[in-house]
């Protein structure tokens, strides 16, 4: 969840995981802004596999700190990666490499605090050239927020995608949250904008603004104030509980969440038009 880094984060899924009270989850993402912090505070998380957990606007994630420092609400295990090395771990998982030799974390204590990373040397070099061997990472499920999809799950994404493609192909199952459902012809008009085709997708859900408060390029602006308020209101556990009741637990679904946001959500809707130049796929 949050493979795209700071945009297109599937917060609608975050909320539903909390409502369903799932536990012992392993949250895998390079950076997923406050999504992981919410899940930790709700006691859903046993393991965090990633590069960064916090609040991009506010800095620290209070729930992450409480869990890692004091075991509140429960202690968590942290599998440390850098962005590039977790990207390579997804790549290996996606493309059938049992492991991958990475140099970008040499010298970092990530190679010490993450016991799954092995140190080795390059067998093609006569000199002692160190490499870090990172095992393939294969998530069980990848949740993707996309701008538009047809009802088969053939989807278009644009803007920066972080590790979305590698994480999705590595995952056992892919669930698409589409901001808009369109006719198959719209997607088929531009097959190079497809990140993963429908036959690789296990479910497609129509959830407008599933990304809120994170942005979705061409669809929704980022709700900076929401991140800021979350940071202020979750400084202690009681504050988080109140926040979480109000925005997650006491709401039945994402439709109710959107209704609660009301005009605020409308003000984040992108109404401008900056269309891409057409690409011609004609064959004759």
């Amino acid at each position: 969840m949050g493979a795209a880094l700071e945009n297109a984060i599937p917060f609608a899924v975050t909320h539903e995981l909390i409502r369903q009270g799932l536990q012992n989850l392993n949250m895998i993402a390079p950076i997923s802004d406050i999504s992981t912090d919410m899940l930790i505070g709700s006691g859903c998380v046993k393991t965090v596999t990633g590069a960064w957990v916090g609040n991009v606007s506010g800095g620290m994630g209070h729930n992450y700190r409480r869990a890692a420092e004091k075991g509140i609400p429960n202690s968590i295990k942290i599998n440390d990666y850098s962005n590039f090395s977790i990207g390579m771990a997804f790549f290996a998982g996606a493309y059938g490499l049992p492991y991958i030799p990475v140099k970008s974390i040499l010298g970092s204590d990530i190679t010490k605090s993450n016991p799954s990373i092995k140190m080795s040397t390059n067998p093609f070099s006569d000199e002692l050239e160190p490499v870090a061997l990172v095992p393939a990472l294969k998530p069980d499920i990848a949740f993707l927020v996309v701008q538009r999809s047809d009802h088969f799950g053939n989807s278009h994404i644009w803007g920066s995608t972080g590790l979305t493609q590698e994480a999705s192909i590595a995952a056992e199952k892919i669930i698409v949250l589409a901001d808009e459902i369109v006719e198959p012809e719209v997607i088929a008009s531009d097959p190079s904008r497809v990140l993963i085709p429908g036959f690789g997708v296990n479910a497609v859900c129509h959830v407008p603004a599933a990304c809120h408060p994170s942005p979705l390029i061409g669809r929704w602006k980022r709700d900076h104030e929401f991140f800021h308020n979350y940071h202020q209101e979750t400084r202690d556990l009681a504050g988080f509980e109140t926040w979480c009741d109000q925005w997650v637990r006491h709401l039945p679904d994402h439709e109710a969440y959107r209704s609660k946001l009301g005009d605020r959500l409308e003000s984040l809707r992108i109404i401008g038009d900056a269309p891409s130049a057409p690409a011609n796929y004609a064959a004759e």
Partner: protein
Amino acid sequence: MPENYSTQELMIIAAAREINDYERIFVGMRLPITAYGVARLTHAPNAVGLFESGVSRYEPAKDMLYTMCDGPNQLGAAWTTGLIQIMGLLSGGRVHAGFIGGAEIDRYGNINTSYIGDFDDPDVKLPGSGGAPDIASMAERLIVIMNHKKHRLVKKVDYITSPGFLGGGNERKMAGLIGGGPAVVITDRAILRPYGPENELHLAAYHPNHTVQEILKNTGWDLKSIPDVHETASPTKVELEALHQIDKDGFWRT
């Protein structure tokens, strides 16, 4: 202070001076992105900005950014792509410099953004690495921005998130790192640079209205000075005008 600029403005302009024309730079948010904008408007009009989520831009975004993934950073970008593609420019030696910050830095330029205390049972859990280790290990030069406090500029960091010169000397090279390591640390009091065969951070310049003695008192190791240590050059009129053109609301002026 009679000066017509703030400390943060001075830091931004000092950072901008570290960017050369035509260079490709991992920018990051806030202070560095403003420094990048100043450099583009002054001496480095052809610099290129990179953002690890998968964005590369020529002109800085027109609106204030909170994250590199915000819409304004993507509209009119040179490239919106994946993290691997963008960070791959690092390993291909196509990136000249990268900006990073941190909670702790030590005298060999190693940076900690992960754990204060033991990583198995930390006193403070910091947000973590993001792409900083990748940039720190592979960019030709690393430009570090820090607040200058004794507990942040420490003798030895608790955890090396992003490697500087490790234990000093040629340890960095021996560890197989391809990039050049920290070239400069810009704080709110001074500018530090690695110096000598040990690659230890030395005081290179002190900001106007700051003394060497005060800086030493606020550094966690016995900070030495380079031979030609001097006062940081004040912002020029051109530099300040460029900064004010970007920072219309005066966010950095106080």
